[in-house]
């Protein structure tokens, strides 16, 4: 190659590499904007992930991570040998399935019902009311429940007595825990959950309904053949997110409901982690439990995501 050609290629290569650097410098203000948020994620989201290491150690606070001895998988072995483990697993899975079967369809049904309403004023009225519980903290929801279900002058028990039944100790019983939990979840989230479905339904072409009516389809058939298929993608995505959440379900919620009488049915991974870890100081063991839970959750999401893509829908990532 001639001298100029060599020089030109060298220059081209150098500018190509420093093209990236140039862009970074040009965008330095943007990077500065991202920096504080990035620091937040690094410190409070990723540093704790590094902290998962203590699940493999016998962590002592005064020794720190670098000073604590390694125990390998000992904590995990202990976890699987623990009788409580299967109780927790069963509880978590059962609550999740109940959530899926009883809670998940409700916002969809409500959205379909709302979508069929022609009077805007009525629709808005209903929406205003059903969104309210979503903004209440779990403390408020559970407190209201306690007040209403209490043995001592709670309105539900008073009603039962009036109808000739015995009072039921809802709050301490094993049998009532799961229904109570699910009803609370529905009360709080079903209304809010309609928003995203309604948004998807708003995008449906009205002409589809026209055509269906011409063909003699009644209301139900229109819903079944037009409305529901149109929101299929949304349903799938939300289902995926829900599955990813399976082991995450309602720590703040259940923590408030947990008591010595219903522990058998109410204890889940997170409450166990909290009790063993922060109450009893078994840092490493409880971290191992939490680690296990998070990993399983991640695997489930990945599986669900892959399944969704196989079914032709978009995944979360």
């Amino acid at each position, binding site marked *: 190659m001639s001298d100029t050609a060599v020089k030109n290629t060298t220059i081209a290569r150098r500018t190509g590499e420093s093209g990236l650097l140039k862009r970074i410098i040009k965008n330095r203000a943007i990077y500065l*904007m991202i920096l504080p948020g990035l620091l937040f994620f690094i410190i409070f989201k990723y540093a704790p992930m590094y902290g998962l290491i203590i699940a493999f150690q016998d962590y002592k606070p005064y020794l720190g991570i670098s000073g604590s001895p390694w125990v390998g998988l000992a904590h995990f072995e202990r976890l699987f040998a623990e009788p409580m483990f299967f109780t927790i697993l069963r509880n978590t899975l059962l609550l999740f399935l109940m959530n899926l079967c009883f809670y998940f369809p409700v916002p969809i049904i409500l959205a379909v019902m709302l979508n069929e309403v022609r009077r805007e004023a009525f629709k808005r009225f209903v929406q205003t009311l059903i969104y309210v519980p979503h903004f209440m903290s779990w403390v408020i929801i559970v407190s209201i429940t306690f007040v209403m279900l209490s043995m001592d002058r709670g309105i539900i028990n008073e009603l039962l007595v009036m109808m000739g039944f015995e009072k039921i100790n809802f709050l301490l019983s094993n049998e009532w825990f799961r229904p109570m939990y699910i009803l609370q979840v529905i009360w709080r989230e079903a209304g809010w959950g309609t928003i995203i479905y309604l948004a998807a339904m708003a995008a449906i072409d009205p002409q589809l309904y026209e055509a269906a009516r011409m063909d003699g389809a009644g209301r139900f058939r229109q819903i079944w053949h037009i409305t529901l298929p149109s929101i299929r993608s949304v349903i799938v995505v939300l289902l995926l997110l829900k599955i990813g959440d399976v082991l995450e379900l309602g720590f703040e919620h259940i923590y408030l409901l947990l008591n010595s009488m219903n522990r058998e049915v109410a204890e889940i991974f997170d409450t166990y982690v909290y009790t063993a870890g922060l109450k009893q100081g078994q840092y490493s063991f409880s971290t191992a439990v939490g680690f296990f839970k998070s990993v399983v959750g991640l695997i489930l999401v990945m599986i669900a995501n892959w399944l969704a893509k196989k079914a032709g829908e978009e995944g979360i990532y």
Partner: protein
Amino acid sequence: MHDKSLGSRVFDAVNYTLLALVALITILPFIHVVAGSFTTVQELAEKQFVLIPTVWSLDAYRYVFSTNTLIRGLGVSIGVTVIGTLISMFLTSLMAYGLSRRDLDGRRIIMFAVVFTMLFNGGMIPTFLVVKSMGLIDTYASLIIPTAINAFNLIIMRNFFQNLPDGIEESAKIDGCGDWGILFKIVIPLSMPAIATISLFYAVTYWNTYMTAILYLNDSVKWPVQVILRQIVILASGLSADTSGMDDSFVTPPEQTVKMAVIVVATLPILLVYPFLQKHFAKGALLGSIKG
């Protein structure tokens, strides 16, 4: 053109009725609690169905405010909510705007890192240890900083910024506006609906803070309202397994009316703010950004 057949009209009648029923059932517990808080203990005991009290009384409220506890809690909650929302919005908007710029190198990696935190996290103990190592235990800051940015909110804001017309940034640049200028003088004013909505999301979350308070605070003086509520209604009934943070001053179970009054106090600010929220949802200002 609407279907006026008989089947269709029956459908409507049933639909409307059911929806009205749902709305009513949703709101009934609140009405019951509010009504019960404004009556006397005897009234509640005799007429258990208090939906509209025949005997009005501020007894419960007088009792609840007779000590400083609730007022202090309100102060804490309001402070945390206002300051927390400001900090969160500042951090979130800045990062969201930065990530909305398509010409940014590394954008995809950072976004992935953000989304990943929604799928997997370090867990309670490691996070606790991080907070502890930063010296935040038993400080008000621990109620704000560790939860400053919500990944979901961040994504919504980023999508919103992304959907703004490119032309605006272009013309601003031609006018010699720097990146900061574009953000503050043009993008932010245009984004008020999204900013308002996300601010309200953060505000509600901060107002409802209770678990972080139980985890990170040791001093009951610093308790926000929700923790006090838990103390009074849930712990005092002797029904909870975890009595951590139990304050001895509330050992005798309070009356039903008192419990209801505290619930009302804990809920009120949200209910006051709620009408403003509603306006934005009805507009669907948020939804466009979710779809992105």
